[in-house]
């Protein structure tokens, strides 16, 4: 026995009787559910009909193109990305205002956060949508944009914002989501700034840095590292929350799924498929963010 010899193994956790019973129960429930659907419900499954709404073969161009559901997923993704960017900007400003010395700014940000946190999201989205689409858009000239102008009718624009004809619609949904999620990001930012100890402010003050310099050079760089993981989580939440804007006719995944379900009458297949699409999307991002976080944590050592 010497200290350089390989360590003896620790006892392993084994599969116990309890695990077997539980696994058996779960399998039993699944079998029963499948039996119910097949024998009692009498439902004619037709996956191919619905799957063709993800991608279809375009006879004219002779290649596979994205169909409604995949297009919807891209719109959902675009919505989530742009709304997260805008919501982060709102959140950083409001989060800073939550903590700053000016009373008016504190009241504004507090009111914003409390209003949004205490109204059901769907109610908020209805109020907000009818307000912006009817009041703000004509005001800033968004409703009189020329969709066929070369600025909008190009590949880059389509990649970033989707169909130019639906641009106004897209922006409405995006702002709705951003203002809504911004309130949650405000709280994330506030918590991030608060998590930086008093000592950092004091050290900055002691060497004569201005309030702005302390915030920019000392506090925010540290706060951002703490904010990024919950912000990534909020992005995934936003992907799921974006389903709500289907109610104001934004043509994202849930809205188009509704149409597919209505035209094909294959309700089960459609929604199971759409659920799977959301799951893949969210799980993918959760996985990527977790990996990035691990790498970031290692780099900070």
């Amino acid at each position, binding site marked *: 026995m010497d200290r350089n010899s390989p360590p003896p193994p620790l006892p392993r956790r084994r599969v116990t009787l309890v695990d077997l019973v539980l696994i058996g129960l779960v399998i039993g429930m699944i079998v029963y559910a499948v039996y119910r659907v097949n024998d009692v419900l009498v439902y004619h499954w037709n996956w191919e009909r619905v799957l063709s709404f993800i991608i279809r073969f375009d006879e004219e161009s002779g290649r596979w193109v994205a169909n409604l559901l995949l297009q919807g997923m891209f719109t959902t993704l675009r919505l989530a990305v742009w709304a997260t960017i805008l919501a982060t900007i709102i959140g950083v400003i409001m989060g800073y205002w939550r903590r700053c010395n000016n009373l008016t700014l504190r009241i504004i940000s507090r009111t914003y956060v409390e209003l949004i946190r205490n109204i059901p999201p769907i109610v908020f989205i209805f109020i907000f949508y009818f307000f912006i689409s009817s009041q703000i858009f004509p005001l800033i000239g968004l409703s009189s944009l020329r969709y066929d102008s070369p600025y909008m009718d190009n590949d880059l624009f389509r990649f970033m914002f989707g169909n130019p004809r639906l641009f106004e619609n897209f922006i409405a949904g995006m702002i709705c989501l951003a203002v809504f999620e911004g309130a949650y990001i405000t709280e994330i930012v506030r918590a991030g700034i608060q998590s930086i100890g008093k000592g950092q402010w004091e050290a900055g003050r002691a*060497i*004569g840095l201005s309030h702005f310099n302390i915030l920019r050079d000392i506090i925010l760089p540290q706060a951002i590292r703490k904010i990024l993981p919950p912000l990534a989580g909020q992005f995934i939440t936003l992907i799921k929350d974006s389903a709500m804007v289907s109610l104001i006719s934004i043509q994202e995944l849930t809205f188009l799924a509704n149409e597919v379900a209505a035209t094909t009458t294959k309700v089960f297949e459609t929604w199971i498929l759409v659920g799977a699409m959301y799951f893949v999307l969210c799980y993918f991002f959760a996985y990527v963010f977790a990996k990035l976080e691990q790498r970031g944590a290692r780099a900070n050592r």
Partner: protein
Amino acid sequence: MNDKTASPLKVPETKAKDKPIVEVSGLCKWFGDFCALFDINFSVNFGEKVVICGPSGSGKSTLIRCLNQLEEHQLGTIRIDGREVKPGMKGIEEIRRDVGMVFQSFNLFPHLSILDNLTIGPIRNRGMSKSEASEMAMELLDRVHISEQANKYPMQLSGGQQQRVAIARALCMKPKIMLFDEPTSALDPEMISGVLDVMVELAEDGMTMLCVTHEMGFARQVGDRVIFMDDAEIVETADPESFFNNPETERAKLFLSQLLSH
């Protein structure tokens, strides 16, 4: 001109040695209803080294934190180099640049390298170029015996090394006075002497220093005066030898006996 003058720690020779740099009169400070400082009067001359000691909660830290307005006082006046320091005043940054401060918990900026910890002050406040500031920072790091760590991050250094970096960071602003808030209290015993050595060198170079510390050896070696505080007041002021050997007040005797008993 001897070579001591060229050292970066060397304080510019002041014309009037007896001119006060810190003048405090009638200073009172409350935290809520709790009176932390009551009717504090003292002054510190250029080049003087003053040690503040006293039991915990006696207001020592609060006192030196009022000097650069990390704490705001309610009553009394504070002057630093002739300029009055008031709560909420404009231009407090200017005064803070003349007053270096070293904290018990170092408070280095963890996201910046050691070198950047030092240069951020001169670059942002004095508009110094990055290379100029780095050059000065390296000289100072050399003086606190830590220049080989310049590109590391604070977390990679021991407590004693971090505290020496913190001293160098404060010196980077070329302060007229240095405030030390229990600089060795958070350190492992074997780290203390390295920090004290740097402080002694700084004192020998003529820096004006105001130290809250219980290091009696340090107080005896460099202190011109000891201020003993208890219960928010200055109880006794004396030179170190007579304070540690023959304290006048009962409270100082009690404090010293507790300090020595372990």
